[in-house]
């Protein structure tokens, strides 16, 4: 899902960078000092989760779990996912430097939106009820990310339209898997540590 340097047009790159700065600032505003250790450790766990490869038929996909990140972190998912992408670019060579803004927005914005929309549904009712809504949220987040990647490519030039469409179709199984995994993760978290999704004082949302 990473876009690399040199593919996008300048307006898209600049627009992405500006939006990313705004999102990060918004996320940091929702992040009091007390919550930084929690956000940092969660950010690290999402980084580790993105290294997990899940089998799908003869191939495998790596997890993104931005929906889950949004559900757990809320607005703080924006800076947390940015940090993950920055570290991936610098130390692994995934993605690029000038496209960091676009990549952050493509992954973090769906996370935050899913977090804001689905979090009340996930924390309510039985654990199974929460898991089902969480699963839907996880799938929606990946769908939105893929769509955002497709839009950034298509805005940069008509020659990318075919690639953008293929990216979307190719990611439909990933959406299903991410949805299932997010649902299962939330089911477990609701059973083991219900307060994870209950807004306490100084909560995320």
């Amino acid at each position, binding site marked *: 899902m*990473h876009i*690399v*340097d*040199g*593919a996008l047009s300048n307006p898209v790159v600049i627009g992405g960078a500006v939006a990313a700065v705004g999102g990060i600032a918004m996320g*940091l505003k929702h*992040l009091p*000092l*007390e919550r*930084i*250790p*929690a*956000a*940092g*450790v969660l*950010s*690290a*766990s999402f*980084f*580790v*989760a993105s290294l*997990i490869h*899940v*089998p*799908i038929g003869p191939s495998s996909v790596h*997890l993104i779990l931005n929906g*889950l990140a949004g559900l757990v972190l809320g607005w703080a998912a924006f*800076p*947390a996912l940015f*940090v*993950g992408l920055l*570290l991936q*670019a*610098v*130390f*692994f*060579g*995934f*993605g*690029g*430097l*000038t496209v960091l803004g676009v990549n952050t927005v493509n992954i973090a914005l769906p996370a935050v939106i899913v977090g804001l929309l689905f979090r009340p549904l996930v924390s309510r009712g039985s654990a199974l009820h929460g898991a089902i809504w969480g699963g839907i949220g996880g799938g929606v987040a990946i769908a939105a990310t893929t769509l955002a990647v497709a839009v950034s*490519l298509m805005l940069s030039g*008509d*020659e990318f339209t*075919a*690639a953008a469409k*293929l990216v979307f179709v190719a990611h439909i199984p990933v959406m299903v*898997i991410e949805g*299932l*995994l997010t*649902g*299962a*993760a939330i*089911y*477990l*978290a609701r059973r*083991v*540590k219900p307060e*994870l999704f209950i807004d306490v004082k100084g909560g995320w949302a």
Partner: protein
Amino acid sequence: MTYVLTGADRAIGGFGGLRSAITSLDPRMRIVVTVIYAITVVGLSDLRVLSGAMILSLWLLAISGLPFQKTLKRMAMMDTFIIFMLVLLPFTMPGTPIFTVWGISASWEGLWRAVEIGLTANAVILAVMTMVGSMEPVTMGHALFALKTPERLVHLMMFTIRYIDVLREEYQRLRTSMKLRGFRPGTNWHTYRSYGYLVGMMLVRAIERSERILAAMKCRGFSGRIVLLEQFRLTRSDRVFAAALCLALGALVWAEVLYAAA
């Protein structure tokens, strides 16, 4: 075990422990120059000039002291992600046809565009990995803070850097215990549910760990300040290096303008 970010066998003294032409330079200068480098190279479009940029990046790699093959392999890994998009380009961009398969023709324009993107992406990411990726992650955090990155963002990054390895060990422990209980991944509901529980468990443990961290930090009077362990200093060799690289970039831009006019 090897560490996730540095790829070294030991926590400290991996890539960051290298003493070479690049690693002895001021980290702040390296970050700033890398950003300038990336923006400039993305602005180039002539294939000959981009090849020059690629050679410049390879030279940076050569003097950085990073393991040559390993770094190039990482770069090639990124290429496997984008190759799909690049291969499509000749077929989707209209222009002079090269050949036709099943009524779809590949164009020269599309091919050159694909080469252009490939060269740009590789030249930039190679420079990023050699100039910034050769730092110790913590040093990068401190350098970003010295460059006026918001304190909370740097804190968040430092925590992430610190706990990636810890959490990966936790992940591997959980995987080992799954294996001991006979778990074999496949394309089925059981696998996805088990992976989901694995991720869920990691999150629960992460939250509990963060509570202990917060308590320990409060106990030591943490106030949100970042204490810089080392003072960054801009030396003569830093200035020389930055000037040389900017000069090389200037030459690339000049060549680009010349070729565009021709």
